[in-house]
């Protein structure tokens, strides 16, 4: 990694070659996928009314999920920014949990609370009221808000934390409280952060598969990803699947472009919630409002997790052998995916950090390309490309690891690049003048700054891959499932207790992997 330190010079071969190789691989996979689906696709006229409905539903649910998540996050972020209370750190950690929580587990938890036979329905039935029916749009929105409310709150909390302390002091000195304070200090910061938060959440929800598979479905609540899956797996109509994938690529690329241009990258690890020192909100109404916002968020985020823990605990003690076998496959996929993510992102980050400014921006943009694709688009493209030469089902696990790694690489790049750039800027010239090269340079200049972000990025990639229910559903045969796929199969065959037990094992696997890597990073 002994690259040039002055950003105006071109990097040495040791940095340039691996970086260029990673860049080519990522770009080839993403653009190649786009080309493959475009070539294999039918003419756009072949889209049925149901396909257009799926496209419209995808946009509508993603927009509503983003709006609801951000609207609910405003009072929550405001309350968290000005209150210190016992359990605040625990809540901050809880807010990081949905990001790592496998979608299929969260869906089980949300169903256990809000579903027809869930806790809320039980309570309503006890009061003589009708039970809830969340299937379709309500369920999709509930699950998406469960996932994205914490993300929105963290993005807005970051906006709060970025307000200079003098501004709060100035407002306090001028006697600005309540609405005046909101208009003077808070709204300008939130207004700058909200478009980015909306775009990020829209982009995340536009590629939603597991949620739509479990809680949506039916002709009126199908997302594009689900339509691709059904076209490929049930109808075996690859041309239509490719056309839908091309449509999805366009939608994702637009959303990703908006998200990248509007949203600041999260500065801290999930769960970190910095405290703002402010002097308002001492009155009883403000205190009650904040307490209510925090309590409702705790219940909304905590109850589904608690439901999985409570319902999964009995089954977790007697997990059948198939769960362990599936867990073994998921572990292998997760580890391979984490290693591959770093193998792509680290050379890319080193290259982007060492290149002159304009070239660095191009390299970074190319590294972020996979965000424009969705796992399903990549999956379908690989399926189309590999089918003439190999049986994709036989390669299900390596392909899943590869797609997950390519999809995680942009996140890892965004985590690794800032500390690498800081290392260059702060001590690059000093390292040059001391003649630090090769391994010595890596050990002294880079590793101390990169260890924590490397651990965090690897943990994130492993956890996301372990919990992935997307590409694997496309490739895998039911007889050799990963843990999330097995869970889905158990849940859909009404073996709910076994599914809950498997959910607990999956939580353990995802969070355990993240914890191990992140802990290594923190030394």
């Amino acid at each position, binding site marked *: 990694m002994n690259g040039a330190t002055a950003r105006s010079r071109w990097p040495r071969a040791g940095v340039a070659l691996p970086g260029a190789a990673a860049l080519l691989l990522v770009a080839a996979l993403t653009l190649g996928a786009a080309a493959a689906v475009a070539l294999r696709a039918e003419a756009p006229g072949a889209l049925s009314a149901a396909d257009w409905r799926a496209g419209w539903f995808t946009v509508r649910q993603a927009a509503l999920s983003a709006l609801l998540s951000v609207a609910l996050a405003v009072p929550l972020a405001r309350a968290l920014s000005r209150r210190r209370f016992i359990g605040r750190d625990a809540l901050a950690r809880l807010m990081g949990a949905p990001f790592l929580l496998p979608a299929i587990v969260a869906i089980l938890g949300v169903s256990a609370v809000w579903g027809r036979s869930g806790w809320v329905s039980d309570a309503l039935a006890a009061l003589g009221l009708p039970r809830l029916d969340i299937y379709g749009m309500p369920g999709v929105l509930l699950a998406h808000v469960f996932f994205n409310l914490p993300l929105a709150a963290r993005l807005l909390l970051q906006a709060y934390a970025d307000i*200079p302390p*003098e*501004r709060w*002091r100035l407002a*306090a*000195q001028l*006697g600005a409280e309540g609405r005046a304070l909101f208009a*003077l*200090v808070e709204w300008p910061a939130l207004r700058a952060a909200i478009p980015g938060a909306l775009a990020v959440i829209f982009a995340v929800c536009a590629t939603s598969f597991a949620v739509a598979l479990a809680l949506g479905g039916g002709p009126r609540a199908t997302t594009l990803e689900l339509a691709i899956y059904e076209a490929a797996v049930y109808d075996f109509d690859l041309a239509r699947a490719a056309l839908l994938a091309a449509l999805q690529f366009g939608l994702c690329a637009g959303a990703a472009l908006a998200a990248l241009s509007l949203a600041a990258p999260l500065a801290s690890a999930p769960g970190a919630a910095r405290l703002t020192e402010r*002097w308002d909100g001492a009155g009883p109404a403000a205190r009650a409002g904040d307490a209510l916002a925090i309590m409702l968020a705790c219940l909304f985020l905590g109850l589904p997790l608690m439901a999985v823990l409570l319902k999964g605990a009995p089954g977790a003690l007697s997990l059948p052998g198939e769960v362990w076998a599936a867990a073994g496959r998921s572990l292998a996929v997760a580890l391979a995916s984490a290693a591959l993510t770093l193998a792509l992102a680290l050379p890319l980050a080193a290259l982007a950090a060492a290149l002159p400014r304009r070239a660095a921006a191009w390299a970074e943009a190319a590294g972020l390309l996979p965000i424009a694709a969705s796992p399903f688009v990549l999956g379908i493209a690989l399926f189309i490309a590999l089918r003439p030469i190999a049986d994709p089902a036989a390669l299900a696990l390596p392909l899943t690891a590869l797609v997950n790694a390519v999809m995680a690489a942009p996140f890892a790049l965004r985590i690794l690049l800032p500390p690498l750039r800081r290392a260059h800027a702060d001590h690059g010239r000093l390292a040059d003048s001391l003649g630090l090269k090769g391994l010595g340079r890596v050990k002294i200049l880079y590793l101390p700054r990169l260890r924590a972000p490397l651990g965090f990025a690897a943990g994130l990639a492993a956890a996301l891959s372990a919990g992935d229910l997307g590409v694997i559903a496309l490739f895998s045969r039911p007889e050799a499932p990963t843990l999330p796929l097995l869970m889905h199969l158990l849940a859909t065959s009404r073996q709910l207790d076994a599914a809950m037990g498997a959910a607990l094992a999956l939580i353990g696997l995802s969070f355990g992997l993240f914890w191990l890597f992140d802990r290594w990073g923190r030394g």
Partner: protein
Amino acid sequence: MIAIERMVAQSGAFRLHADLTIPKGAFCALIGPSGGGKSTLLLAIAGFVPVIGGRVSVAGRDLAGLAPAARPVSLLFQDNNLFPHLSVAQNVGLGLRPDLRLSAAQAAQVAAALAETGLDGLGARLPDQLSGGQRQRAALARALLRDRPALLLDEPFAALGPGLRAEMLALARAMAAPRGITVLMVTHHPADAQAADLAAFCASEGDAGRIGGARPPAALFADPPPGLAAYLGPVACPPTA
């Protein structure tokens, strides 16, 4: 008058002990190394750092338990004295009403304050469209409108060049003196302290700071406490006036 009697202020692990009195209308400079507690003293007077012992009063009013807005002081920070999304006139108008619902008479007051600080005709601009010196003038204009008996300057002119800094200090003095406003100013520059009516030294002692009585600058520099001599270094104190 600003009276600080055996005050102890706590900011995180840092503890500041201060004991000094500044007569009404005086211009006092606070000099000393970074981390000694100069800014902490100003923040404690303004109500942003808790005072855990002793007494602080301004114009005879005990400040204990008073919210920042209720304190008879105006504080100017080094940066971020203006809200970037409000015009210069609106920023100054905040000194009269935080909700900016100004009467015609109040709008005229804002215009007069802008004129007095040399910002005539710039009221409609955004802070980004002003120079650093003009931004601090706008902050001074607001402090002037707030009409508080004490003005606390936490190095608001530190980022300006020497000539502009001297000009801004002269403006602050010219505004404060006729109104009988007492000024307490943090500085790193011996020349600024030299030009003040009084100067106090802020000594750093690890996790603690200590600020002693204010003296005429000539007396302070002629017989500097050991910490001040070390702070100023071998080039020694500036020649006394």
